[in-house]
């Protein structure tokens, strides 16, 4: 084995993979959210944003392939880590109490991750592979959002995503060795803040469509 595979096959190496890919998803979420906010500008504004995005052409495809690769790494590595962790304590405790370290976000990472994965499959099918010739993206989006089932599911999944990033955000820094009394408390606050931004920023969209349009 060469040094790269040796490095990334260790427990710490695998965590570094989770951290780097996770951090890029956080970056992606920020960009995605900013883009989504154009919806509030109305149909034309949003559709022109989509057109601008698509006019990037090959650059966009490179990003898409990059995201897909990172997603595969994140999901597969996460699955391996979860499976190994599951095996690491064959006999469980009869009584188990938290000492105060765990949070709802940290304790549910594999589950929230799995829900997000299922959501992403549908999300990509619904929007990326939709037939954009008959309807504009705005019409596709509103089509789903006026359906109470889709709207409700979307809001729930955004809350799930918020829990996932509430742990993932600061945890990604810790894994890269970025932890210091000077700024870690701030990173933890940022984690929660970002989680709220994700839940509110994305989660409010269907509510907006159902209540105000």
């Amino acid at each position, binding site marked *: 084995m060469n040094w790269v595979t040796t490095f990334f096959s260790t427990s710490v190496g695998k965590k570094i993979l989770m951290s780097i890919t996770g951090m890029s998803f956080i970056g992606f979420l920020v960009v995605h959210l900013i883009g989504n906010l154009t919806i509030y500008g109305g149909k034309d504004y949003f559709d022109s944003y989509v057109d601008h995005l698509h006019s990037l052409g090959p650059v966009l495809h490179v990003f898409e392939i990059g995201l897909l690769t990172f997603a595969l790494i994140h999901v597969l590595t996460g699955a391996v880590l979860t499976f190994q962790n599951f095996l690491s304590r064959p006999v469980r405790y*009869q009584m188990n109490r938290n000492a105060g370290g765990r949070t709802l976000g940290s304790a549910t990472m594999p589950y929230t991750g799995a829900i997000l994965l299922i959501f992403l499959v549908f999300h990509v099918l619904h929007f990326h592979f939709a037939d954009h010739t008959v309807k504009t993206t705005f019409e596709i989006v509103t089509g789903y959002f006026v359906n109470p089932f889709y709207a409700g599911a979307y809001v729930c999944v955004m809350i799930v995503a918020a829990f996932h990033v509430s742990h993932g955000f600061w945890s990604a820094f810790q894994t890269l060795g970025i932890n210091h009394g000077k700024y870690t408390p701030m990173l933890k606050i940022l984690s929660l803040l970002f989680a709220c931004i994700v839940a509110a920023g994305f989660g409010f969209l269907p509510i907006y469509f159902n209540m105000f349009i």
Partner: protein
Amino acid sequence: MSTGDGMEKKINLTLKVWRQKGPDKKGKIETYRAEDISTDMSFLEMIDVVNEKLVLEGGDPISFDHDCREGICGMCGAVVNGRAHGPSKGTTLCQLHMRHFSDGDTVVIEPFRSRAFKLVKDLVVDRSAFDKIIQAGGYVSVNTGGVPDANAIPIPQEKADLAMDAAQCIGCGACVASCPNASAMLFVSAKVSQLALLPQGRAEAPTRVINMVKEMDNQLFGNCSNERECEAECPKSISIVNIARLNREFIKAGLLSNEK
């Protein structure tokens, strides 16, 4: 020790203890009465009392590990009511006193659970996986010869303090026991930090961190997911800042040294 009002109190408890005759035997929770327990006693002394009665009745005493009973050796440890070393923060089991319990309490006592710590008997687990990790790099190689002068190498106080904080780890294994993933990262990070922070340990830092992490994986400990249960349970309050340092050392060693 006094109860505060100068009066020794006596309490009665119900113990639910994991009993298992040997590594491959089937174990189960057994119930015992712990009667007339002085609140001045330590948790281990309380088990001593129960064991004396068990022996007098011709039973098999509960096996548990202990040595110094002063909170410095790292031998003792069990999960008490779901908490490694019991409910008090920064305390080993031998330093946990019965005044933290009330009359009539039920106390569940289980061994440290991890695939890497094989159960020997009752509450005794084999923690030699930690020794293997230390053997993989938790040392500074010193050639024989004259004893070096103390203070010959100046070390900034701040660094010395950080190294001392990490060096407080007594290798008890509570971090593994309390980690939802049974990861040994806090222990390994304390050892890596203690040596990496000092000039004497710096020279071998890249080899050390890589070899110790590999051995940790080899011993089948779980993967750290930054749950922070370890630092909350560690009797020496070792901080996960050390885990971040281990991660940094690991990245540095992987990218900037010839080690693989």
